């Protein structure tokens, strides 16, 4: 709730005067991919909650670990039970700041490639993430995307010894927000 309480209040009290620079979505997408000799691992979560404040540059994502869907049930079960322990750590949260966000123009159609610095908390561990995001404004709709890599050991996610040599311990994370909604007063 640490992420969501401010967001809930934000949505409820945001005044129309300031709302135009503040956006949210419940329909973001996060995909992760890992290529390895044993098998490629890929999963998608289509229910990412995100908040973006263009004025301050603050950007946040939250995702439920049990919401990641795999092609095969066995892989999904192993992911939740043996790797990310999603009963114990149900969420992953990213909180960051977009550098030079004041340069984002919300009028006209444009794409802005900007640096994002923040922290990702997953499996009870928080690490710094520095990456590049693309913020796109098209026909008044704001969307965002970014990719970054993480190492499993940085998040204390251990790989069973029997497959340790065959699993790629680095994951590529792809975040995609197809359309932010303007925050309005409820």
């Amino acid at each position: 709730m640490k992420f969501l309480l401010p967001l809930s209040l934000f949505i409820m009290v945001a005044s129309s005067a300031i709302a135009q620079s503040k956006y949210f979505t419940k329909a973001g997408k996060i995909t992760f991919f890992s290529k390895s000799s044993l098998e490629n691992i890929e999963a998608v979560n289509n229910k990412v909650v995100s908040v973006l404040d263009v004025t301050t540059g603050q950007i946040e994502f939250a995702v439920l670990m049990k919401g990641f869907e795999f092609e095969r049930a066995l892989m999904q079960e192993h992911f939740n039970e043996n790797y990310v322990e999603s009963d114990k750590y149900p969420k992953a949260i990213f909180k960051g700041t977009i550098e030079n966000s004041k340069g984002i123009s919300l009028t006209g159609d444009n794409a802005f490639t900007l640096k994002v610095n923040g922290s990702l908390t997953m499996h009870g561990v928080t690490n710094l993430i520095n990456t590049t995001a693309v913020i796109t404004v098209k026909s008044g709709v704001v969307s965002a995307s970014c990719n970054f890599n993480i190492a499993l050991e940085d998040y204390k996610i251990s790989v069973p010894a029997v497959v340790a040599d065959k699993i790629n311990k680095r994951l590529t994370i792809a975040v995609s927000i197809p359309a932010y909604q303007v925050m309005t007063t409820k």
Partner: protein
Amino acid sequence: MVLSKKNIAITAGLIVIIMTGYLYKEYHRQLADITSVQPVAKINVAAIVNLYQNDETKANQQYLNKTIQVKGAITEIINQQDTLINVFIGDTNSVHNVSCLLDKRHFNTIKKYTTGQQITIKGICTGFLLDVELNRCVIVQDNQ
């Protein structure tokens, strides 16, 4: 009776074939359709949202990764070109509702519903962000 080498070889071969078949089937197993799964709870939107808002840890202990059945009014149906259908049920004036990601095998069942209609949906609870989140959802007929 002493087993001959031939019988031992045939038995071992059968065991290997059966094990290989089992492992292949298990490896390629798809997530189960929950149509026939009995829910651990039948609850309305306000009640489950209240539970999560009041004590998320306790609510997760009760419902996380379990099948629950929720009844409420449809506030929004998001259909991304039939690749993904998300049904929100609850109150349009509330920030927190229940978000139901439909099982692809049941996409057609939502097409007769529109916003405002009452619906009963069963799904696997994946937790709480802004909404209580259910995945692999199926629509439950009124008499169930």
